[in-house]
Protein backbone atom coordinates (compact mmCIF):
# COMPACT_ATOMS: atom_id res chain seq x y z
CA UNK A 1 0.00 0.00 0.00
CA UNK A 2 1.34 3.38 -0.97
CA UNK A 3 1.40 6.19 1.54
CA UNK A 4 -0.68 9.32 1.12
CA UNK A 5 1.58 11.98 -0.31
CA UNK A 6 -0.54 15.05 0.31
CA UNK A 7 -3.90 15.77 1.83
CA UNK A 8 -6.23 18.66 1.00
CA UNK A 9 -9.42 19.36 2.92
CA UNK A 10 -12.19 21.84 2.27
CA UNK A 11 -15.28 22.67 4.24
CA UNK A 12 -18.35 24.14 2.56
CA UNK A 13 -21.70 25.27 3.93
CA UNK A 14 -24.28 22.53 3.30
CA UNK A 15 -25.86 24.48 0.45
CA UNK A 16 -26.26 23.41 -3.19
CA UNK A 17 -24.60 26.54 -4.58
CA UNK A 18 -21.21 25.40 -3.28
CA UNK A 19 -21.20 21.98 -4.97
CA UNK A 20 -19.79 23.62 -8.10
CA UNK A 21 -16.92 24.94 -6.00
CA UNK A 22 -16.09 21.39 -4.89
CA UNK A 23 -16.09 20.35 -8.57
CA UNK A 24 -13.69 23.15 -9.46
CA UNK A 25 -11.34 22.14 -6.66
CA UNK A 26 -11.46 18.51 -7.76
CA UNK A 27 -10.73 19.57 -11.35
CA UNK A 28 -7.68 21.48 -10.21
CA UNK A 29 -6.30 18.66 -8.08
CA UNK A 30 -6.97 15.87 -10.58
CA UNK A 31 -5.61 17.71 -13.60
CA UNK A 32 -2.52 18.58 -11.57
CA UNK A 33 -2.13 14.83 -10.93
CA UNK A 34 -2.33 14.06 -14.64
CA UNK A 35 -5.71 12.34 -14.92
CA UNK A 36 -7.32 12.12 -18.36
CA UNK A 37 -10.31 14.25 -19.34
CA UNK A 38 -12.66 11.26 -19.04
CA UNK A 39 -11.36 10.36 -15.58
CA UNK A 40 -11.71 13.95 -14.37
CA UNK A 41 -15.28 14.17 -15.69
CA UNK A 42 -16.13 10.85 -13.98
CA UNK A 43 -14.77 12.14 -10.67
CA UNK A 44 -16.61 15.45 -11.05
CA UNK A 45 -19.91 13.57 -11.21
CA UNK A 46 -19.00 11.26 -8.31
CA UNK A 47 -17.90 14.07 -5.99
CA UNK A 48 -20.98 16.14 -6.91
CA UNK A 49 -23.32 13.23 -6.23
CA UNK A 50 -21.74 12.62 -2.84
CA UNK A 51 -21.88 16.34 -2.03
CA UNK A 52 -25.51 16.55 -3.17
CA UNK A 53 -26.39 13.66 -0.85
CA UNK A 54 -24.57 15.35 2.00
CA UNK A 55 -26.27 18.71 1.39
CA UNK A 56 -29.70 17.09 1.19
CA UNK A 57 -29.01 15.04 4.29
CA UNK A 58 -28.10 18.19 6.18
CA UNK A 59 -31.18 19.95 4.79
CA UNK A 60 -33.51 17.13 5.76
CA UNK A 61 -32.24 17.23 9.30
CA UNK A 62 -32.86 20.97 9.17
CA UNK A 63 -29.67 21.80 10.96
CA UNK A 64 -27.69 23.50 8.24
CA UNK A 65 -24.16 22.48 8.91
CA UNK A 66 -21.18 21.86 6.74
CA UNK A 67 -19.86 19.33 4.29
CA UNK A 68 -16.24 18.31 4.50
CA UNK A 69 -14.48 17.11 1.39
CA UNK A 70 -11.04 15.54 1.73
CA UNK A 71 -8.66 14.69 -1.08
CA UNK A 72 -5.93 12.13 -0.36
CA UNK A 73 -3.34 12.43 -3.08
CA UNK A 74 -1.25 9.37 -3.92
CA UNK A 75 1.26 8.66 -6.64
CA UNK A 76 -1.21 6.53 -8.60
CA UNK A 77 -4.66 7.31 -7.18
CA UNK A 78 -6.89 9.94 -5.63
CA UNK A 79 -8.98 9.19 -2.55
CA UNK A 80 -11.95 11.46 -1.98
CA UNK A 81 -13.94 11.56 1.24
CA UNK A 82 -17.21 13.45 1.53
CA UNK A 83 -18.67 13.72 5.04
CA UNK A 84 -21.78 15.54 6.10
CA UNK A 85 -21.04 15.85 9.79
CA UNK A 86 -20.25 19.36 10.84
CA UNK A 87 -17.25 18.19 12.79
CA UNK A 88 -13.84 18.06 11.30
CA UNK A 89 -12.50 14.57 11.02
CA UNK A 90 -9.29 12.64 11.02
CA UNK A 91 -8.79 11.39 7.47
CA UNK A 92 -6.67 8.36 8.36
CA UNK A 93 -8.85 7.38 11.31
CA UNK A 94 -12.05 7.65 9.28
CA UNK A 95 -10.44 5.57 6.58
CA UNK A 96 -9.54 2.79 9.03
CA UNK A 97 -13.05 2.77 10.49
CA UNK A 98 -14.56 2.11 7.09
CA UNK A 99 -13.33 -1.47 7.00
CA UNK A 100 -13.45 -3.68 3.94
CA UNK A 101 -15.80 -2.96 1.13
CA UNK A 102 -18.82 -5.25 1.21
CA UNK A 103 -21.26 -5.69 -1.62
CA UNK A 104 -24.33 -5.72 0.61
CA UNK A 105 -23.78 -2.48 2.47
CA UNK A 106 -23.58 -0.39 -0.66
CA UNK A 107 -26.50 -2.06 -2.41
CA UNK A 108 -28.60 -1.14 0.60
CA UNK A 109 -27.46 2.43 0.23
CA UNK A 110 -28.26 2.36 -3.46
CA UNK A 111 -31.91 1.76 -2.73
CA UNK A 112 -32.02 4.83 -0.50
CA UNK A 113 -29.82 7.16 -2.47
CA UNK A 114 -31.07 6.24 -5.93
CA UNK A 115 -29.23 7.20 -9.08
CA UNK A 116 -26.61 9.32 -7.32
CA UNK A 117 -24.97 6.45 -5.48
CA UNK A 118 -25.34 4.22 -8.49
CA UNK A 119 -23.31 6.75 -10.50
CA UNK A 120 -20.66 7.01 -7.79
CA UNK A 121 -20.23 3.24 -7.80
CA UNK A 122 -20.13 3.06 -11.57
CA UNK A 123 -17.69 5.90 -12.12
CA UNK A 124 -15.22 5.26 -9.29
CA UNK A 125 -12.92 2.28 -8.81
CA UNK A 126 -13.65 1.78 -5.12
CA UNK A 127 -16.48 3.08 -2.93
CA UNK A 128 -17.17 2.62 0.75
CA UNK A 129 -19.91 4.19 2.81
CA UNK A 130 -19.79 4.74 6.53
CA UNK A 131 -22.94 5.46 8.49
CA UNK A 132 -22.36 7.10 11.82
CA UNK A 133 -23.92 10.30 13.11
CA UNK A 134 -23.74 11.44 9.49
CA UNK A 135 -22.79 9.70 6.28
CA UNK A 136 -19.25 9.47 4.96
CA UNK A 137 -18.63 8.47 1.37
CA UNK A 138 -15.12 7.28 0.66
CA UNK A 139 -14.11 6.79 -2.96
CA UNK A 140 -11.03 6.08 -5.01
CA UNK A 141 -10.10 6.70 -8.63
CA UNK A 142 -6.98 5.01 -9.91
CA UNK A 143 -4.88 6.90 -12.38
CA UNK A 144 -4.58 4.82 -15.50
CA UNK A 145 -2.71 5.23 -18.74
CA UNK A 146 -0.12 7.73 -19.67
CA UNK A 147 0.49 10.52 -17.32
CA UNK A 148 0.31 14.00 -18.70
CA UNK A 149 3.41 15.55 -17.28
CA UNK A 150 2.50 18.74 -15.51
CA UNK A 151 5.82 18.99 -13.76
CA UNK A 152 8.48 21.12 -15.18
CA UNK A 153 11.51 18.99 -15.66
CA UNK A 154 14.73 20.81 -15.29
CA UNK A 155 17.67 18.90 -16.61
CA UNK A 156 20.85 19.66 -14.87
CA UNK A 157 24.09 19.08 -16.57
CA UNK A 158 26.83 19.19 -14.11
CA UNK A 159 30.12 19.71 -15.67
CA UNK A 160 32.78 19.38 -13.14
Amino acid at each position, binding site marked *: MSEVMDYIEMKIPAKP*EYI*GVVRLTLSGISSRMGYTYEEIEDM*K*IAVSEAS*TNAVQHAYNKDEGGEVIVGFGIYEDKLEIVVADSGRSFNFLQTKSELGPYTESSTVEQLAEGG*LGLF*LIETLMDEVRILNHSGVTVFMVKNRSGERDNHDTTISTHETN
Partner: protein
Amino acid sequence: MNITINKHQQDEGIVVLVGGEIDAFTAPKLREEILPLAEGENKSITINLKDVSYLDSTGLGVFVGLFKQLKQHDGELRLIELSDRLIKLFEITGLSNIIDISAHSEGGGR
Protein backbone atom coordinates in the same frame (compact mmCIF):
# COMPACT_ATOMS: atom_id res chain seq x y z
CA MET B 1 -21.61 27.51 -12.38
CA ASN B 2 -24.73 28.83 -13.96
CA ILE B 3 -27.45 27.77 -16.31
CA THR B 4 -29.09 29.42 -19.31
CA ILE B 5 -32.52 28.41 -20.57
CA ASN B 6 -33.94 29.78 -23.84
CA LYS B 7 -37.36 28.70 -25.09
CA HIS B 8 -38.60 29.01 -28.68
CA GLN B 9 -41.98 28.04 -30.10
CA GLN B 10 -41.48 26.36 -33.45
CA ASP B 11 -43.80 24.57 -35.87
CA GLU B 12 -42.97 21.13 -34.53
CA GLY B 13 -43.24 22.16 -30.89
CA ILE B 14 -41.27 23.89 -28.23
CA VAL B 15 -37.49 23.93 -28.50
CA VAL B 16 -35.49 24.66 -25.37
CA LEU B 17 -31.81 25.51 -25.58
CA VAL B 18 -30.09 24.76 -22.29
CA GLY B 19 -26.53 25.77 -21.51
CA GLY B 20 -24.12 25.63 -18.58
CA GLU B 21 -23.97 23.27 -15.64
CA ILE B 22 -26.94 21.26 -14.41
CA ASP B 23 -26.41 20.20 -10.80
CA ALA B 24 -28.22 20.29 -7.44
CA PHE B 25 -28.12 24.09 -7.50
CA THR B 26 -29.36 24.72 -11.06
CA ALA B 27 -31.64 21.69 -11.56
CA PRO B 28 -34.53 23.25 -9.57
CA LYS B 29 -34.40 26.32 -11.87
CA LEU B 30 -34.49 24.08 -14.94
CA ARG B 31 -37.43 22.12 -13.54
CA GLU B 32 -39.31 25.33 -12.78
CA GLU B 33 -38.80 26.60 -16.33
CA ILE B 34 -39.53 23.49 -18.37
CA LEU B 35 -42.13 21.51 -16.42
CA PRO B 36 -44.94 24.02 -17.12
CA LEU B 37 -44.24 23.60 -20.87
CA ALA B 38 -45.47 20.01 -20.58
CA GLU B 39 -48.94 21.03 -19.43
CA GLY B 40 -51.68 20.14 -21.89
CA GLU B 41 -52.24 17.35 -24.40
CA ASN B 42 -49.92 16.23 -27.21
CA LYS B 43 -47.09 18.56 -26.34
CA SER B 44 -43.82 18.10 -28.14
CA ILE B 45 -40.68 19.34 -26.44
CA THR B 46 -37.18 19.24 -27.88
CA ILE B 47 -34.30 20.09 -25.60
CA ASN B 48 -30.98 21.01 -27.14
CA LEU B 49 -28.16 20.17 -24.75
CA LYS B 50 -25.17 21.11 -26.92
CA ASP B 51 -24.06 23.84 -24.53
CA VAL B 52 -24.41 21.76 -21.35
CA SER B 53 -20.94 21.30 -19.91
CA TYR B 54 -21.96 19.33 -16.83
CA LEU B 55 -24.89 17.06 -15.92
CA ASP B 56 -25.48 14.65 -13.03
CA SER B 57 -28.35 12.71 -11.45
CA THR B 58 -30.16 15.90 -10.40
CA GLY B 59 -30.45 16.93 -14.06
CA LEU B 60 -31.39 13.43 -15.16
CA GLY B 61 -34.16 13.58 -12.56
CA VAL B 62 -35.57 16.72 -14.19
CA PHE B 63 -35.67 15.06 -17.61
CA VAL B 64 -37.26 11.91 -16.18
CA GLY B 65 -39.94 14.04 -14.48
CA LEU B 66 -40.61 15.95 -17.69
CA PHE B 67 -40.70 12.73 -19.72
CA LYS B 68 -43.25 11.15 -17.36
CA GLN B 69 -45.50 14.20 -17.44
CA LEU B 70 -45.40 14.38 -21.26
CA LYS B 71 -46.09 10.65 -21.67
CA GLN B 72 -49.16 10.86 -19.47
CA HIS B 73 -50.66 13.33 -21.94
CA ASP B 74 -49.51 11.72 -25.20
CA GLY B 75 -46.71 14.20 -25.60
CA GLU B 76 -43.16 13.55 -26.61
CA LEU B 77 -39.70 14.53 -25.46
CA ARG B 78 -36.52 14.60 -27.48
CA LEU B 79 -33.08 15.46 -26.18
CA ILE B 80 -30.73 16.48 -28.95
CA GLU B 81 -27.09 17.34 -29.59
CA LEU B 82 -25.73 15.49 -26.56
CA SER B 83 -21.97 15.41 -26.09
CA ASP B 84 -20.17 12.07 -25.71
CA ARG B 85 -20.10 12.66 -21.94
CA LEU B 86 -23.86 13.13 -21.77
CA ILE B 87 -24.48 10.10 -23.99
CA LYS B 88 -22.33 8.06 -21.60
CA LEU B 89 -24.38 9.26 -18.63
CA PHE B 90 -27.69 8.33 -20.29
CA GLU B 91 -26.31 4.95 -21.31
CA ILE B 92 -24.93 3.86 -17.95
CA THR B 93 -28.14 4.85 -16.18
CA GLY B 94 -30.26 3.01 -18.75
CA LEU B 95 -32.17 6.17 -19.62
CA SER B 96 -31.04 6.02 -23.25
CA ASN B 97 -33.45 3.08 -23.65
CA ILE B 98 -36.35 5.14 -22.30
CA ILE B 99 -35.84 8.70 -23.49
CA ASP B 100 -35.25 9.66 -27.13
CA ILE B 101 -31.72 11.07 -27.29
CA SER B 102 -29.40 11.91 -30.14
CA ALA B 103 -25.75 12.79 -30.27
CA HIS B 104 -24.03 16.01 -31.17
CA SER B 105 -22.02 14.31 -33.92
CA GLU B 106 -25.21 13.11 -35.65
CA GLY B 107 -26.22 16.70 -36.16
CA GLY B 108 -29.09 16.25 -33.73
CA GLY B 109 -32.82 16.43 -34.29
CA ARG B 110 -33.34 13.02 -35.81
